[in-house]
């Protein structure tokens, strides 16, 4: 854009040196400010590294951390250098532009003056031409008159006028030539301006930085650990791509057992996790190494697992590698190849096939499609697996694949334990899993190596739950499977394992199949159970139920003691009491040693409850006692009214305790109880609250009593809230 205030028509309406020196100078200063800050940034990081490095934090992680921090300095230094160079380039351009515009101004002044002078000369020449014409007419008139003197004078005037005109025209021509030269100089100046701007633009462009090293900080720490454990294992640049990642895995797998390998495994996990977090990198790594290599790596991990004194190297490598595999499995193309790989491995031709199935089977977060294909492949391979001779004990134990040594059949439990979607598919959906297969799955478990004999169903369920990413979902899947297929042995251990998930099971039952579902499940699980099993089940159920009630009366729950308290607590108690009732009824019906069982059940209940939530203890105790006495095994027990009295009294004590402990609850209680008599004073103890005759408390306990009446199908409560 032409600078304003000039008459650029003198240069063909073009400013030869456009630009604003002040604006360029301002840009230079702004970049210089960033360069100054870049120096501060560099110093801050450098100081942090020096301070931390010189501090008392020592050890492998400290060393790796300091090294990782050092890897930030090159980027900080490059930023400082780049911005400094750019600021200098801009300053140079400002100075050059100023010089060029100075030259331009000079040329402009000359050109304007020359053009003005030429134009004036041309004007003068125009007027002189009229003079010449007039002189010519006078000469013609004198010639016509024939006066020699007049003719001579007229000729002289004409000649003088003509000469003057010639002179003026010559001057104008000269001025035009001068102007041309000035305009040519202006064009040259414009060319130099363009060229100069290009030079400085290039200089600024050279200050452009490459994309920063995207390796996450934890990855840098991992690289540093790897580099310290095995010099040369990580490229000097610290940048890892698919090829470098594959080389790292190979290098760690090739290391002999020892401290360096264990250290390297820790670094590998951090490094590969950081790579997996980079978009597209995990898929690129798997695509680079190919499925043959993936199979080989799983096989190599199996080999390392047999020679793993620490017992953590092979699982560590597997975990690190599976992190990449799991992320990559969400890429459609990679999922396709991994699916083909597990389907092929399902033929179980050799140990490597087993390693592939068991290896990828432990990948947490595997894409559902691949997980389902894996589960299907392993399910189909079950007959083959059952026929395989055990791989141990001549091989010793394998730290990465313990189940392959003792019981290859446990592979299915491993796969299902890591993939709830696959578990649901295999255990619940119509996937062709027959009762024998379910029995195998449920018969396996424990720690995967020892104690895998017999129908150790509870341990198998525990194994599945422990390995599940979502144990509640897994518990529901198992419960559904048991409901669908039944179970052939003592179900008490299974129910014990499921008990911690009772809240999820209750929620599931309430949301879907209804309360009957839970009752049927417990009946199946308790069918044929022993007295000891009944005791253990009761204890486990109490454990799970207490958790529910603990949630319901948590001081963190704003609603706990407000006007909904009674209903909410009763609502929370409902499934717990129903569960207890069903469980104990089934246990009692199944037991031939009734008296012992009653005592044992009560002992178990009392052994569990006090350490959990003292305020609930009496409620549970009464419930247990009530249900037992309902069967009237000639035991002195409580009648319905007494039960309700005791439970409501216990609730009153519990409410008082919560009000004493929780000012927010106290405030809510007092707000809700307006019109129901006196408020509870702030700071009152539980005992003081219990001693108060609170009408609103009576109202709450009446609600609870009515709920309990419905739950337990009691006669209408007598003497409570009447």
């Amino acid at each position, binding site marked *: *854009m032409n600078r304003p205030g000039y008459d650029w028509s003198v240069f063909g309406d073009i400013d030869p040196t*456009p*630009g*604003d020196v002040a*604006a*360029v100078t301002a*840009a230079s200063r*702004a*970049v210089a*400010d*960033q360069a100054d*800050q*870049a120096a*501060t*940034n560099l110093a*801050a*990081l450098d100081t*942090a590294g020096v*301070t*931390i490095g010189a*501090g*008392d*934090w020592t050890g492998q*992680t400290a060393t790796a*951390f300091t090294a*990782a*921090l050092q890897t*930030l300095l090159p*980027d*900080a230094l*490059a*930023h400082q250098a*780049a*911005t400094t160079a*750019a600021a200098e380039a*801009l300053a140079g*351009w400002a100075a050059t*532009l100023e010089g060029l515009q100075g030259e331009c101004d000079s040329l402009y002044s000359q050109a304007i003056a020359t053009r003005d002078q030429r134009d004036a000369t041309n004007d003068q020449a125009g007027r002189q031409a009229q003079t010449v014409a007039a002189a010519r007419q006078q000469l013609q008139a004198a010639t016509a008159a024939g006066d020699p003197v007049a003719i001579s004078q007229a000729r002289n005037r004409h000649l003088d006028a003509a000469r003057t005109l010639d002179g003026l025209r010559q001057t104008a021509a000269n001025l035009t030539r001068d102007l041309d030269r000035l305009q040519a100089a202006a064009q040259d100046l414009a060319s130099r301006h363009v060229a100069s*701007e*290009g030079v*400085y*633009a*290039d200089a*600024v*462009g050279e*200050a*452009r*930085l*490459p*994309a*920063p*090293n*995207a390796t*996450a*900080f*934890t990855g*840098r*720490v991992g690289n540093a650990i790897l580099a310290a454990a095995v010099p040369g294992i990580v490229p000097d640049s610290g940048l890892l791509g698919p090829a470098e990642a594959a080389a790292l895995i190979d290098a760690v797998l090739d290391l002999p057992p020892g401290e360096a390998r264990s250290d390297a495994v820790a670094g590998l996990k951090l490094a590969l996790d950081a790579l997996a977090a980079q978009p597209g990198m995990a898929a690129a790594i798997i695509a680079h190494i190919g499925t043959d290599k993936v199979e080989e790596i799983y096989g190599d991990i199996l080999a390392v697992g047999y020679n793993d004194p620490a017992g953590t190297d092979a699982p560590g490598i597997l975990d690190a590698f599976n992190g990449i595999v799991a992320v990559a499995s969400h890429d459609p193309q990679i999922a396709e190849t991994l699916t083909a790989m597990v389907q092929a491995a399902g033929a179980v031709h050799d140990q490597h096939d087993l390693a592939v199935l068991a290896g990828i089977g432990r990948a947490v977060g595997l894409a559902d499609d691949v997980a389902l294909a894996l589960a299907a492949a392993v399910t189909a391979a079950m007959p083959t697996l059952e026929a395989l001779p055990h791989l141990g004990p001549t091989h010793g134990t394998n730290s990465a694949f313990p189940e392959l040594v003792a019981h290859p059949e446990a592979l299915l439990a491993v796969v299902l334990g890591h993939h709830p979607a696959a578990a649901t598919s295999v255990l619940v959906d119509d996937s062709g899993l027959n009762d024998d297969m379910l029995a195998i799955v449920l018969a396996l478990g424990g720690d995967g190596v020892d104690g895998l004999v017999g129908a150790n169903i509870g341990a198998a369920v525990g194994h599945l739950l422990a390995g599940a990413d979502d144990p509640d979902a897994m518990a529901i899947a198992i419960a559904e499977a048991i409901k669908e297929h039944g179970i052939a042995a003592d179900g008490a251990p299974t129910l014990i394992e499921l008990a911690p998930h009772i809240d999820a099971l209750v929620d599931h039952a309430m949301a879907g199949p209804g309360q009957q579902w839970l009752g049927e499940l417990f009946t199946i699980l308790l069918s044929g159970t022993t007295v000891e099993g009944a005791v253990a089940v009761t204890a486990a159920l109490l454990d799970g139920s207490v958790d529910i009630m603990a949630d319901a009366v948590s001081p963190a729950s704003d609603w706990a003691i407000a006007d909904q308290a009674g209903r909410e607590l009763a609502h929370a108690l409902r499934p717990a009491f129903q569960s207890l009732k069903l469980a104990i009824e089934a246990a009692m019906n199944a037991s031939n040693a009734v008296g012992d069982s009653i005592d044992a059940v009560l002992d178990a209940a009392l052994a569990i409850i006090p350490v959990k939530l003292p305020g609930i203890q009496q409620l549970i105790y009464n419930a247990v006692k009530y249900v037992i006495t309902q069967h009237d095994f000639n035991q002195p027990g409580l009648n319905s009214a007494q039960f309700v009295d005791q439970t409501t009294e216990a609730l009153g004590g519990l409410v008082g305790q919560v009000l004493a402990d929780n000012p927010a609850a106290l405030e809510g209680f007092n707000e809700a109880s307006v019109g129901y008599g006196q408020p509870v004073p702030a700071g009152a103890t539980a005992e003081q609250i219990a001693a108060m005759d609170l009408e609103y408390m009576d109202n709450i306990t009446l609600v609870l009593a009515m709920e309990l009446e419905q739950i337990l199908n009691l006669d209408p409560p007598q003497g409570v809230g009447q």
Partner: protein
Amino acid sequence: MAILQVRIDMLTGHASMLSDAATTIRSTPQPGRVDADAVGPHVAAALAEASASWDACIDGLADQAAAAGAFLAEQADGWARIDATFSQVPWL
């Protein structure tokens, strides 16, 4: 235990230092947009490209410094949990 608390305090201090460094880096002034007519179209284009690369560098460094601080904070938290566990054992 006192010795663990010293370590926790030290790691927390380091974490704080790196967090401050991240904040400092993130506050790096930007040159801002320039008028291409005023500074020249080629220079303006080159400056825009370079400036974008500096921004990426600043963001990257700030993120890394923050991640380093978080790493140390996590270490401190781990030691704090260990300390809390020990504190429940009367004879330690």
